[in-house]
């Protein structure tokens, strides 16, 4: 497999950044990792994953989609779309890489979301295999192999070298663009690292978490479960889980009156919020129980029902770490699977 010494990462990043804008996960002042634009001297984080997911690259929290300008009796419609620049996201973890596949199913199915597609077409996802999974990880539950990441191109580290392999044409074009820095390398040590990681993955506290009790055909059973009352009892109704989640994709459209026109924004929304999917008569889900249920039913029942059995979760564990009251999809699954 092609490789480059880890000591030459800076050189590699510089070579990528020369051609395209490069984003890498790096540590910010408070110690948390986040994707930031690479510039000389910016180092790759040692943390397992970024605090926020990588979905912002394709589905930003807020985007101005169209403006309307009033001039007398005329309304001018100003399309805010422009061809996105080419960019590379380096170091995406296997869970987050899978989240793009899930988002694709929503935004790239008919009618195609041109804002999302524009960014997706111009972005190259370079993934990084995991070697130190956390106790909150459960990507295996959703069929993700943390040692064999998806994405356009995939990377592995054996502690000395960074190995890289293309998963598709876009990934191959990316590797070709940096091929002068790469050399063929022996993967014997990497294979050992992978085997060790697999062994750890099998011992994770959530390694046995199963989706067997869920799926598109379990709607009535789960929707009507009495357990939602207890599960949702202490939910604060905040949007933390939704906003750190790599697969939550619901959005709202907001118009701002500029005085002589309208600026229209698309922004992330949360089913936990009281004004979610607000219609003329209000929010169809009037209680926090219903809002809470919606989020988990979407991921475990409705999404697979509409997407050939694929679940709307990748097991990244962010909601497990960040929910202010530590209620999360794992606790919900474990409670609901007991008949």
């Amino acid at each position: 497999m092609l490789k480059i010494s880890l000591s030459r990462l800076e050189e590699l990043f510089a070579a990528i950044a020369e051609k395209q804008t490069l984003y890498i996960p790096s540590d910010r002042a408070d110690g948390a990792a986040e994707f930031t634009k690479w510039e000389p001297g910016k180092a790759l984080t040692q943390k397992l994953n970024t605090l926020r997911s990588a979905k912002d690259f394709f589905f930003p929290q807020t985007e101005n989609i169209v403006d309307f300008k009033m001039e007398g009796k005329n309304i001018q419609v100003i399309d805010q779309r422009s061809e996105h620049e080419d960019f590379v996201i380096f170091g995406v973890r296997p869970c987050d890489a899978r989240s793009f596949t899930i988002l694709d199913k929503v935004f790239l199915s008919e009618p195609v979301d041109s804002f999302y597609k524009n960014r997706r077409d111009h972005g190259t996802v370079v993934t990084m295999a995991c070697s130190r999974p956390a106790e909150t990880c459960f990507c295996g539950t959703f069929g993700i192999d943390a040692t064999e990441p998806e994405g356009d191109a995939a990377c592995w580290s054996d502690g000395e070298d960074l190995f890289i392999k293309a998963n598709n044409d876009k990934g191959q074009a990316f590797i070709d663009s940096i091929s002068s820095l790469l050399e063929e390398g022996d993967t014997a040590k990497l294979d050992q690292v992978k085997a060790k990681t697999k062994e750890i993955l099998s011992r994770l506290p959530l390694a046995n978490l199963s989706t067997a009790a869920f799926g598109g055909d379990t709607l009535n059973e789960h929707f009507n479960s009495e357990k939602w009352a207890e599960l949702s009892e202490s939910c604060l109704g905040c949007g933390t889980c939704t906003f750190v989640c790599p697969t939550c994709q619901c959005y709202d459209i907001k118009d701002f009156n500029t005085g002589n026109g309208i600026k229209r924004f698309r922004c992330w929304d949360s089913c936990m919020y009281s004004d979610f999917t607000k219609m003329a008569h209000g929010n169809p889900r009037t209680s926090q129980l219903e809002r809470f249920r919606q989020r988990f039913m979407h991921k475990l029942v409705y999404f697979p029902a509409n997407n050939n059995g694929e679940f709307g979760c990748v097991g990244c564990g962010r909601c497990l770490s960040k929910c202010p009251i530590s209620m999360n999809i794992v606790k919900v699954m474990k409670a609901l699977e007991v008949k």
Partner: protein
Amino acid sequence: MQEAMIKRAKELLADGSVKRVIGWKRGEFAYDITPAVFESAEELDKDFVFDDFTSANVSKYLVKESKKEGKVLVFLKPCDTYSLNQLTKEHRVDRDNIYVIGIPGGPKLDIEKIKAKGITGILSVKNDNYTLKIDTLYGEETMPFSEAILDKCASCKSKKHVTYDELIGEDGDVLDSDRFDMVEKLENMTAQERYDFWREQLSKCIRCNACRNVCPACTCEKCVFDNPNSGVENKAASDSFEENMFHIIRAFHVAGRCTDCGECSRVCPQNIPLHLLNRKFIKDINSLYGEYQAGADTTSRAPLTDYTADDCEASIVHERGAE
């Protein structure tokens, strides 16, 4: 302590004194504790937990729970009792329908501080004479208890329970804390430095509203920021300053009512030190109107909703702004 709490809760459930118990429920790991309502001895035995990670302030749940039929038992740490008093003062809870058992406070642990040391794959955390022994998937790790203390506990203002019906353990005193040190540091910065500090911090905000929703002082039936008809609902931030304004406005809204329980900063997924905004208000109120601690009692008039001839004049804004 946990055993004594469970025992007493069972007694009060059994003799009909209370119908429900608010406490903390154990999770999947050593640290992911969820506030919960228990209704039976079996539930208490199975899941009730009180340990170094039970830091959540459960007093806000009383807004809802105290209005249900039958008395509710709640276990409150000293800091949590200030929140309950403030809620009582604002007529947001039915205090007569609440039975408070005061329990010892922290210091509680912050799992994020343990993880920040690079410790991962955490299977258990044991406090061995103030050294944390942490069993992980990658072997055993140790670190001093003192380095994993939650920020809100590190600057604890009081070990005194300001309201309770009975105590388990002993009551403590109001403490001399260093909680205004960082506020002073910020005050001593130049306006530009201070602006830069807050811009960096507040720009991390993802508007999840966790700070607002956990805040015992934020109990409006409908928050103005959730009301699409208010004109200020800003789920979509039209510029990078909107999140900043949200936090500043919220701090104004809870000024004089915030007890400094520290939950806002504890739950912030982006590690924004929101409590510093509240502490600035508390410090200013103390210096401009005389020492005042929100939640210390249920009857006194709060400085910002009271008038005395000694109140500072509006010109104070002008004078201080010139500093």
